[in-house]
């Protein structure tokens, strides 16, 4: 079992140093993305929203999975917590921004509560544990009397317009990127990678591994929940199968693997790829998922570091030989 996981993790490229340049590039790209609603139509804004949403999810997931080795299949749990927190809190009359913050807090607390049990598991066992956790949470929401059961909850707040959603998603995407960059610049970056590569040795070198994992897992979950809270606004109605559906988990993992796990840029490349592929195949919904599946298999086989990881490795080689 452990071998399988290490094979998966060995595909992660070493992250490069983060410098001031990265922040400038992010600011420039964000500025360009900001003007999109002025020049493009509703359709483009919706596609843009999807890309930003998926990119942010995959980048947030990557904090735990790519850098810390906590390969979670429980993203749907955090996403659903965000969705339902937004629905309940905004219906209670709280301002939208506060609802988002609340979503992050709820997700963080959830991570804290489940961590003693989950962190006893390592490698693939952890992965399977998170999968079970998300499913258990979904069933709990369906069966408990407070969350509207299968029918779900209608949001009473005004539905945001496409451009508003787009800008909210953009702001969240920037938040996620800045979190990742700050993390990679800090000493946490070494700790996370050390825990990923060899938890026992990390501990022997003074790294408090439990704390490190909890921070990474909690931050990753909180950011996923924030994205989830926006999805509630987007839909206007929240339902257990939409909020806690495993399709979110699968989408996040596909985006991250295709783009490149453990890289800064990979999740965003993966998101652009998956969303545009989906738009391209919109006439053929019956083969859409099959094509994504085939692409995933091909990437894992031929580009184990994902699109971005393969690209940067090739660049490095080029540099070494010249």
């Amino acid at each position, binding site marked *: 079992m452990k071998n399988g996981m290490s094979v998966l993790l060995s595909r992660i490229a070493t992250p490069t140093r983060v410098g001031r340049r990265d922040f400038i590039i992010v600011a420039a790209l964000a500025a360009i993305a900001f003007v999109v609603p002025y020049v493009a139509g509703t359709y483009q804004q919706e596609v843009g929203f999807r890309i930003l949403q998926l990119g942010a999810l995959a980048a947030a997931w990557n904090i735990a999975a790519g850098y810390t080795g906590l390969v979670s299949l429980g993203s749907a749990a955090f996403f659903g917590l965000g969705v339902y927190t937004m629905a309940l809190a905004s219906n209670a009359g709280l301002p939208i921004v506060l609802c988002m913050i609340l979503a992050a807090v709820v997700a963080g607390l959830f991570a804290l509560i489940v961590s003693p049990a989950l962190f006893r598991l390592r490698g693939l066992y952890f992965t399977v544990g998170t999968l079970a956790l998300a499913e258990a949470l979904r069933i709990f929401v369906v069966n408990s009397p407070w969350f509207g059961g299968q029918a779900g909850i209608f949001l009473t707040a005004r539905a945001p317009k496409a451009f508003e959603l787009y800008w909210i998603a953009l702001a969240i995407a920037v938040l996620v990127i800045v979190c990742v960059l700050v993390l990679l610049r800090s000493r946490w970056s070494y700790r996370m990678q050390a825990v990923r590569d060899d938890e026992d040795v*990390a501990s022997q070198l003074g790294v*408090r591994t439990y704390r490190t994992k909890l921070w990474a897992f909690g931050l990753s979950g909180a950011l996923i929940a924030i994205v989830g809270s926006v999805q509630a606004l987007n839909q206007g109605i929240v339902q257990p199968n939409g909020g806690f559906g495993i399709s979110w988990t699968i989408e996040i993992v596909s985006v991250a693997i295709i783009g490149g796990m453990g890289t800064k840029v990979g999740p965003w490349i993966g998101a652009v790829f998956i969303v545009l592929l989906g738009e391209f195949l919109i006439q053929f919904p019956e083969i859409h998922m099959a094509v994504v599946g085939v692409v995933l298999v091909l990437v894992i086989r031929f580009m184990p570091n994902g699109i971005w990881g393969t690209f940067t490795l090739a660049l490095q080689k080029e540099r070494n030989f010249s």
Partner: protein
Amino acid sequence: MTAVLQLTSITKSYGGVRALDSLSLEVAPGEVLGVIGPNGAGKSTLIGVIGGALTPNSGSVTFDGRDISKLSSADRARMGIGRTYQIPRPFTRMTVADNVRLAATNSGHHISQRELEPFVGGILDRLGLAPFAHETAGKLPLLRRKRLELARALALKPRVLLLDEIGAGLVRAETDELITIIQSLRTEVESMVLIEHVMDVISRCCDRTAVLDFGKLVTVDETPKVLADPVVASLYLGSIADSAEPTPFDEDKRAGIRASLTSLVSVAKPVSDAPLLAVDDVWVRYGGLNALKGVSFDVQPGECIALLGANGAGKTTMARALAGAVPLTSGTISFAGKSIAGLRPDEVTALGVAQCMEGRKIFGTLSIEENLIAGGLDARKHVKAERLEAVYSIFPILKQRRKNSGTALSGGQQQMLAIGRALMSAPTLVVFDEISLGLSPIAVDEVYEALGAIRDSGVAMIIVEQSVERALALADRAMVLSQGEITLEGMPSELLADARLLSSYLG
């Protein structure tokens, strides 16, 4: 004076095996304590228990008068206990410098961003790792990984340093350098515990030495007294002890082994004057580095060649090239008249070239018997059974424990398993890579006795070794590699006669 580190009746069992059996030991301030003992005596377990990686079944560990038995290894590291691993475990995808930075920023001492770089740079410099600071640690060869282990432990600014066989596999000059480093550490570190099989390190660094056997303390005393102890000589030191008398060879046993070997090896009949193995102008390039620069040599049928050289000289690369595990950049290797360059490792093995790899590479999830069978999967069932019996008759201990996991054996027994596994393919040529690495002196005696019998059976051998005297005693011909080229070649007696020449080549 109170002890810095005190272990009180520690017992640690794995399954039914007691690795440590109510062991009590003290480390005094300012002391360097050596720990020696046969492979499997519980030495590494001892370090695991002190460092916190292993929880003992009973007993307590006291550090500076405080009971630390319940503390996590991270907290112990922050209190000032630094350890290294016998088999280095670097964070392979982080750079060498990042490996050290990690330890520096997680020690109990606060270090500002401004102080960090000079501190890390200083440690890397001191251990000769500065040129590799920006390489990923996974690219380092074994010996530099060992240095990185020490570098990381030092970055914790430890008060007590636990070093697990950092001297294994070093040539003389490197050992001297290591001893200098350890001696220089005495002023920075309060106390050290050294597990070592290299007796030079023990005798020149350690104030006191403890001897373990079967998890029990045999003796602990001033180092010279311990090394002169006849009990220690018979238990551990073997033929290198001053007091040792040459053990008479048991002729019956030898004859038995020789009989077993006839079914295990294929002796090549010299068809013509052509050599069995011909290596011609072989170049191997990794990344931007030439590991081998035009190496040429021959091996005749039944000949035993010693391949010597300093660490990083290209010995293991040569062994791996012979195995088909690294592609040749240019040049040819032919075996029994057939080119083997470009063949896969399994195809090379099928032709009759077996490998006994560096670091033993035992499959931990397989039993001993399964490990052996894995060495000769191509053979028919009855042939396999026959070879298995033959290996068992050479190494009876393997038969006794054949259902156990391959890694449940002591180091010396694992090496026997690795040798046995290499023989299972009935090879014509066997490459033994660093066979004495990390073995207690007495286990090296045993392993080399087996090698002697294997040589006498007529199989051709290439012995890649750091332990120059042992290899030369066995070989028909010796070669010295330095920086990827063969710089010295000759009869063992010639090389031994001119020790200065040899040592200048070995660095």
